[in-house]
């Protein structure tokens, strides 16, 4: 009897309140096991809009997506960055394992152009993920992006400042902040489950240890050789 009940409850269409529904959502693993268990599909949802609210620059919000970005670009998919606030530093992206030949940067003149570019990239079916930085986006545009992401099967990750937090049609909303030198990720909204406890990730743990003289790329020095005495 109970095994029969279990079989029924295993069905993906059955949702039990209280835990995160094990729905099969196509998603890209984030690369952080602690974070993956909090997300409905076990990763960044593909074909949906994800909002990442960032407390301030430098809290580790980009490192959060680097493992996924590296995985996607290495498997030959494209990654599009729309309206980044600063220069994405190519050597650092490469050091995180991102294949630069699969990275596209779009610098639109206006926010409208930027939203249009996101939609085009999402619908193109060739970009696996679109990362965008916008301050104010009307809810209608967010809905459009959500639909575009669904139709193209691409992950739309939108980085927004924390002060913007009205209701949004995003499938997943995260808040990223810093606490005691660790990056604190809080799930504000997810499909199929209540809001879980925040998770602290140690993203910068390895960075300082690597600060040392690095093997140089051997620049070609054109100085004449000194005569051996």
């Amino acid at each position, binding site marked *: 009897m109970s095994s029969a009940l279990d079989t029924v409850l295993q069905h993906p269409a059955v949702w039990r309140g209280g835990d995160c529904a094990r729905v099969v959502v196509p998603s890209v693993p984030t690369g952080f096991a602690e974070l993956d268990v909090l997300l409905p599909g076990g990763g960044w949802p593909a074909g949906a809009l994800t909002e990442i609210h960032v407390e301030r620059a*430098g*809290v580790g919000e980009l490192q959060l997506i680097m493992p996924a970005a590296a995985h996607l670009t290495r498997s030959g998919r494209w990654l599009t960055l729309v309206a980044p606030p600063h220069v994405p530093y190519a050597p650092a992206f490469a050091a995180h394992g991102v294949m630069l030949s699969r990275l596209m*940067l779009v610098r*639109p003149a206006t926010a409208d152009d930027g939203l249009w570019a996101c939609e085009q990239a999402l619908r193109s079916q060739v970009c696996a993920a679109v990362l965008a930085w916008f301050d104010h986006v009307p809810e209608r545009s967010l809905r459009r992006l959500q639909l575009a992401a669904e139709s193209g099967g691409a992950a739309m990750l939108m980085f927004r400042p924390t002060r913007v937090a009205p209701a949004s049609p995003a499938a997943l909303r995260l808040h990223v902040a810093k606490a005691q030198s660790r990056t604190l990720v809080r799930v504000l909204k997810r499909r199929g489950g209540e809001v879980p406890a925040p998770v602290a990730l140690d993203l910068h743990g390895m*960075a300082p240890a*690597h600060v040392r*003289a*690095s093997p140089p*790329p051997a*620049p070609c020095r054109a100085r004449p050789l000194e005569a051996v005495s």
Partner: protein
Amino acid sequence: MLWLALRFPSLPLETFTRGVAHPGPLAVASSPGAHAGIVACNSRARGHGVRPGMPVAAASALATDLRILTRDPAAERAALEHIAAGAIQFSPTVSIAPGTGVLPEVLLEIGGSLKIFGGLTRLWKRIEQELESQGYTFSLACAPTPLAAQFFARAGLPVRIQHGDALRAGIAQLSVDVLGLPSGSDTLLADIGVCTIGACLKLPRAGLARRMGQELLATLDRALGHIPDPLPAFVPPAGFAATLQLPAPVEEAGALLFAFRRLLADLCGFLAAAGKGAQRLHFRLAHEDRDDTCFELNLATATRDTEHLVTVLRERLERLALPSPATAIALKALLLMPLAARNLALLPDAREQAETIVRLIERLRARLGENAVHGLDTVADHRPEYAWRIDASIGQNREPGTSDRGAWLPLSRPLWVLHAPRPLADVDGKPQQDGPLALIAGPELIESGWWDNNDIAREYFVARNPAQSLLWIYRECRAGGGWYLHGYFS
């Protein structure tokens, strides 16, 4: 031998109207002036009672909003040549034969093409689609001799005769009008009660030749294949340039796109026939009282896909500010590249994906500008500002795996760098940003670049501000000194 004749009965009209989706009442006159006759008119003009053959003055009296344009034989000839150039994709033997009146017809020898296009029905459909996308009304007919195909096309009968016996039976039922006889001869035939070609063929040859001239007999013999009928082959031009007159000035981008779609369809037909793709296109819009508006489209790869070109052009037209309505449009292909046809794959492959990304990039660039879309690459240089570059050739010729040169760098580089380093406040030799910064790693001395006069000498640190953000800062070691913020470990 199997010949396909393409006849364009409304060509004088369509040289003007094919660029417009819903033209108003329009008629084409044989020459300027009120005494000229109407040659052709569209259905809306016909609704007002305008008929071909009417004097211009009578037609204008019938419909007050009727636009009367003067026939443009040069544009008609150019249109036929574009059709013939596009038809070469279906058959290597194409020629433009003189038709009845002054309307020429395009002839294709398709006997050799049936197998490659999968039979006559499919080829017929392909040719129909091609002509429809170019915006022409047409009648097609297929027969074993070119002249017979022309006769059936003139009669408007879409027959597909492939054998001599059927040809003889079919041609006998056609009216003698399709022969295109001089005006004296056709009245003579009517007077003796000969209305069909069949009746004409029953007459004794000697008497017919004496009364009507040898020419009629020769025409009938050529049509039936009794004597050879060599045709001059059409030689396509090396490049593509086309103009389209608009019947009324157009300002709206959507209407302009409709007109350009016609020219792009012409272009793609030409390219398919030539086995080429266009990489640079020059567009020109003529205005009534101003200089022409010109712009170019640069494509990342050569293409001959009408729909793709239309999508890219749509974005470009939206950005275009027209000083005044356009009266004519022109398209010229500036850079043609060989582009082989390729086999269709069952599943999307890597090349198809590369093609899609190139299309996406072209669409984005058409609206946002050439420089708004680019890639990134690393450069082997110690100076942070010179260790990366913008890669404008994104999406092309870069195999995956060629850009891992930056992998030697440790994770000590931030993901964000500022466009220009920002000076930090300095209190007692300690850098400040929202309070004093704690230096948690460093210094990393970077002193390099003496060879190109952009040398730097800096001590880089990883610093943490009171709000726990990790920053990449440096101390200038040269004259002036001071602390600078260069990036964020986001």
